[in-house]
């Protein structure tokens, strides 16, 4: 039994149980202990991110159950703030997923920022408590400030320091690509390669699908998308892969753009004291339209006009139907 006296001989499952009682931030630091601990901690962090997404999904479903369908009614609903916060978190999670998931799938790294997991879990629990107690949570910008800061820090650090190294590893062929789903992993590596030649920066956030006129006063215009690489590895690239690769890149850009808009909307409303931040993620064209408007006043006025027009159209339709009958 001499080896049994060591925790090293304990099954990984037990180590994971111990990690479950630690904050994710602490789990990250514990990766430095030894390789076994690192393996278990990585798995725990990846599971943590999956659980967070599921927890967010459950919370979102719970709030959506109580919200009215119509956007105009939703804005004045007591749960509108919950929905705002959850929408902003959803965008954050998508961004984080876009940053880390492709590398996680290729087993090149794990979900590194444990602190982000801790913070997001804490926010979701606060939201759930306030939902149960029927109280209002703190204003979105206050509640989400820390999450926004640390998740951006983590993603920037990853893009600058980690991603180039991991991409090289993936492309040099020493990665365990054998485990990955063939075509998908090739697309992902392609996307990585493309990003390597045009690293994502805050100055290129607008999606390439936007017309140039819509890259308005709030955001700098977007650099055009780089053409897909002509070859990924010998013999593996065809037209289909390139199209998929371009799609991955576009969707990432769209999400960054969405995130920026959500953040902007939240900040704007917190500054003007309004609580009725728009609930939904509007379509890209509508977002672009919004950005094009010179001042917040104009924006809200136009929104009111648009709603009134919508109402009028509905009324007209009703009138016509009544006439026909």
């Amino acid at each position, binding site marked *: 039994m001499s080896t049994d006296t060591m925790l090293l001989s304990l099954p990984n499952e037990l180590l994971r*149980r111990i990690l479950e009682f*630690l904050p994710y931030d*602490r789990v990250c630091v514990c990766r*430095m202990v030894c390789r076994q601990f690192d393996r278990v901690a990585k798995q725990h962090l990846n599971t943590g991110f999956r659980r967070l997404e599921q*927890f967010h999904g459950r919370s979102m479903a719970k709030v959506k159950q109580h919200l009215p369908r119509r956007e105009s009614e939703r804005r004045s609903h007591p749960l509108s703030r919950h929905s705002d916060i959850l929408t902003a978190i959803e965008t954050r999670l998508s961004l984080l997923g876009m940053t880390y998931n492709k590398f996680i799938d290729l087993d090149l790294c794990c979900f590194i*920022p444990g602190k982000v997991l801790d913070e997001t*879990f804490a926010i979701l*629990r606060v939201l759930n408590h306030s939902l149960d107690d029927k109280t209002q949570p703190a204003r979105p910008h206050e509640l989400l400030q820390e999450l926004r800061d*640390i998740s951006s820090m983590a993603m920037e650090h990853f893009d600058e320091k980690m991603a180039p190294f991991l991409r090289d590893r993936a492309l040099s062929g020493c990665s365990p690509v054998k485990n990955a789903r063939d075509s998908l992993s090739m697309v992902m590596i392609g996307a990585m390669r493309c990003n390597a030649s045009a690293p994502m920066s805050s100055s290129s956030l607008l999606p390439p699908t936007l017309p140039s006129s819509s890259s308005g006063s709030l955001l700098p215009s977007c650099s055009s998308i780089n053409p897909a690489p002509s070859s990924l590895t010998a013999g593996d690239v065809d037209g289909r892969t390139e199209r998929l690769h371009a799609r991955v890149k576009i969707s990432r850009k769209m999400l960054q753009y969405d995130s920026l808009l959500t953040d902007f909307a939240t900040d704007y409303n917190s500054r003007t004291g309004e609580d009725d931040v728009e609930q939904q993620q509007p379509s890209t064209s509508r977002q672009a339209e919004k950005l094009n408007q010179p001042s917040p006043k104009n924006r809200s006025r136009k929104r009111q006009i648009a709603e009134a027009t919508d109402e009028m159209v509905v009324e007209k339709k009703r009138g016509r139907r009544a006439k026909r009958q």
Partner: protein
Amino acid sequence: MIQLCSNDDPPVSFTVPRKAVELSKTIKTMLEDLEGFDMEQTPIPLPNVDAPTLELIVKWVEQHQDDPPPVEKPRVEDDDSDDSDADDDQEPEVVIPEWDKKFLPTDDEQKNQLFKLLNAANYLEIKPLLDIGCKYVADKISGQTVEWVRDYLNMENDYTPEEEAKLKEEIAWAEGL
């Protein structure tokens, strides 16, 4: 009453009330499978547990035999490979009761005994004991340096200097927070 035997040579046996021994899921399942046999006359050998550890286990199950059974959470259908039963909707909350605090071998000289106990609790599937033991270890290593954790858990640094530097860089994003 059920007899449990340690893996020592010669084996040390302990007689435990059936209700208490059924706190172990492993033994409970075995007893259910062997329904019809006279288990009171057949000692159960435990090849992974030595006498001092088994003594601790017996002491713990006898103390907790009248505890209300833990509430089994319904398993979510699409909860893929994640075998953890943690409930994310609530802050994970395990409070170590006073009696258990005194019971756990918590002195630094006794840490190997604690790890043996955790091993045995895992093998015998005694979840509440496993929970308080793991919670204790987690509290112990929380806020300590990496070197301290390594020493406490009898682990060795098996990274190359390059790997260690790379890992440091990987987690460096949160420095200064």
